[in-house]
C-alpha cells in the first residue's frame, strides 16, 4: 500500500500536466514499514526527464540526481520509497519498458495518464520479487493521509497540527 498526502498526490499529477506532451518523472521520499508492505510518502522530488530523443514515451532520471536525492533524504531520515512518471495519452499501466527498466525492488512505481494536458487516472505498482529474474509488478492501493481541511474543519489527523499552522480561509 502506498500512502500520500493529498497535496503530494496532486503535485505529481500537476507535474505530468506541465510537461505534457512529454513524460514527467520524479522520486517519492518517505518511510517504509518494517515488513516493507506499506510505504508512506513524505515528500516528492521532481526530476528532469533526460530522454531528449523521445521524451513523449520514454523517461530517464540522471543517476546523479538520484545520488543527490538519496543523500538529502538520508539527512532528513527519509528513504527513496518509489518513483513516479506520466503516460501522455496512454493508459496508467506499466509498459514492457517500465518493467524492463524497473530495478528498485520493494519500491512503488506510480503512473499517471495525462490526456490532452489533463491528468486522468493514477495507479501504483509495487515491484516485488527476490531478484531481477524473479521481479514482478503488483497493483497496489493508494491511500491518503488525513490532513487539515482548509477553512478550519479538522480531519482526524488535525489534532497533531499546531493551531498556528492551520491555513486560514
Amino acid at each position: 500500500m502506498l500512502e500520500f498526502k493529498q497535496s503530494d498526490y496532486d503535485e505529481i499529477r500537476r507535474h505530468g500536466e506541465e510537461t505534457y506532451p512529454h513524460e514527467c518523472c520524479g522520486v517519492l521520499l518517505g518511510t517504509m514499514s518494517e515488513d516493507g508492505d506499506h510505504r508512506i510518502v513524505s515528500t516528492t522530488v521532481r526530476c528532469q526527464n533526460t530522454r531528449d530523443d523521445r521524451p513523449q514515451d520514454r523517461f530517464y532520471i540522471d543517476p546523479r540526481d538520484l545520488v543527490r536525492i538519496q543523500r538529502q533524504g538520508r539527512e532528513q531520515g527519509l528513504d527513496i520509497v518509489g518513483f513516479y512518471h506520466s503516460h501522455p495519452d496512454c493508459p496508467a499501466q506499466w509498459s514492457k519498458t517500465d518493467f524492463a527498466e524497473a530495478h528498485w525492488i520493494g519500491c512503488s512505481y506510480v503512473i499517471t495518464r495525462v490526456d490532452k494536458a489533463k491528468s486522468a487516472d493514477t495507479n501504483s505498482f509495487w515491484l516485488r520479487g527476490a531478484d531481477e529474474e524473479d521481479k514482478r509488478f503488483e497493483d497496489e492501493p493508494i491511500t491518503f493521509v488525513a490532513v487539515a481541511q482548509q477553512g478550519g474543519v479538522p480531519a482526524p489527523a488535525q489534532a497533531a497540527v499546531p493551531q498556528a499552522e492551520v491555513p486560514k480561509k
Partner: protein
Amino acid sequence: MKVLIPTPLRQYADKKDAVDVPGATVGEALKNLTTSHPDLKKHLYNEDGKLRAFVNVYLNDEDIRYMEKENTPVAQSDTLSIVPSIAGG
C-alpha cells in the same frame, strides 16, 4: 569509507542504509562490502563478475565509469553511492 546502500538492497545488508568498509579502490571497497554481506553480490554483479549494467556507482558525486571505474582510488573520507537506474516508457 562509507557505502550508501539503496532501499532495495538493504535487506541484504542487515537493513543498514550505510556500511563502512576498508579499501584503497572502488573495486576493493565493493569486494569488501560483498564479502561482509555476501547476499549483495548477485544483485550488484552479473555471472561474469561485472557490475550489472543498471547499477550505477558514484564516488561522491562522480560516476566511476567516467573515472577509472573499479580501479578508481578512494580515501576513507569518501562516500560511495550505489544507485540502480530509473527509466521507463
